[in-house]
C-alpha cells in the first residue's frame, strides 16, 4: 500500500531539488559568461524556472489550500515581472553603451537603430520622449 503523505513529500522534494539545480546553473552562467547580455540570458531564464519549481514544490507539499494558492499567485507574479525586468535592463544596457563581447557576430538592435537614425533616437531618449 502506498503511503500518500510520504509520496507527496517525496514529489515536493524532487521538484524543489530540480528547482535548486536550475538556480545553480543560472548563477554559474551569471558568473561565467562573457558579457552582460549573455549573463542576462542565462541568469533570468534559469533562475525564473528554478523559482517556479521551488514554488510548485510548496503547492505539492501543502495542497491547494491558503498556502498553495499564495504560492501559485507568487508564480504568476514572477512570471509577469521577471521577463519585463530583464527586458528593461537589456534595453538600458544597450542604450547606455555597454559593448557586446568580442565573440559576438550580430547586433540587430543597433542595426535597427541605425536604420531609423541612431543619433536622433538617442537624443529623444535624453529628452525623455518614448520612441
Amino acid at each position, binding site marked *: 500500500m502506498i503511503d500518500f503523505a510520504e509520496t507527496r513529500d517525496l514529489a*515536493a*522534494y524532487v521538484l*524543489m*531539488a530540480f*528547482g*535548486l539545480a536550475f*538556480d*545553480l546553473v*543560472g*548563477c*554559474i552562467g*551569471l*558568473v561565467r559568461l562573457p558579457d*552582460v547580455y549573455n*549573463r*542576462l540570458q542565462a*541568469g*533570468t531564464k534559469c*533562475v*525564473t524556472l*528554478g*523559482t517556479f519549481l*521551488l*514554488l510548485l*514544490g*510548496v503547492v505539492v*507539499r*501543502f495542497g491547494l489550500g*491558503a*498556502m498553495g494558492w*499564495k*504560492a501559485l*499567485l*507568487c508564480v504568476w*507574479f*514572477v512570471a509577469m*515581472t*521577471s521577463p*519585463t*525586468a*530583464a527586458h*528593461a*535592463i537589456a*534595453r*538600458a*544596457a544597450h*542604450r*547606455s553603451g*555597454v559593448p557586446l563581447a568580442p565573440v559576438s557576430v550580430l547586433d540587430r538592435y543597433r542595426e535597427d537603430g541605425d536604420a531609423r537614425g541612431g543619433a536622433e533616437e538617442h537624443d529623444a*531618449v*535624453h529628452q*525623455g520622449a518614448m520612441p
Partner: protein
Amino acid sequence: MNALELLMAGLCLASSLCLWRAWLGPTAADRAVAVDLLGILMVGFCAVLTVQTGRDLYMVVGLAWSLVAFVGSLALAKHLEGRRFDD
C-alpha cells in the same frame, strides 16, 4: 543534515555567486542583473522556508518580495538609461 537544509545551502551558494557577480561586475548593468536575480532567488528562499516551518507568513513575504524586486529592477534600468525617475 536533512533535505531542506541541503536546499538552503544550495540556495546560499547560488546567492553568493550572484553577489560575486555584483562585486566583480565590470559595468553597472552587470550589477543590475545580479541584483535582479538575487531578488528572484529570495522568493525561492521564502518557498523553502515555508516548507521548513509550515507557516503561512513566509509565502506572504515572498509575494511582497517579488513585486518590490520588480520595481527595484525597473528603477535601476531607468537610471542606467539616463532617464529621470518621474518620466
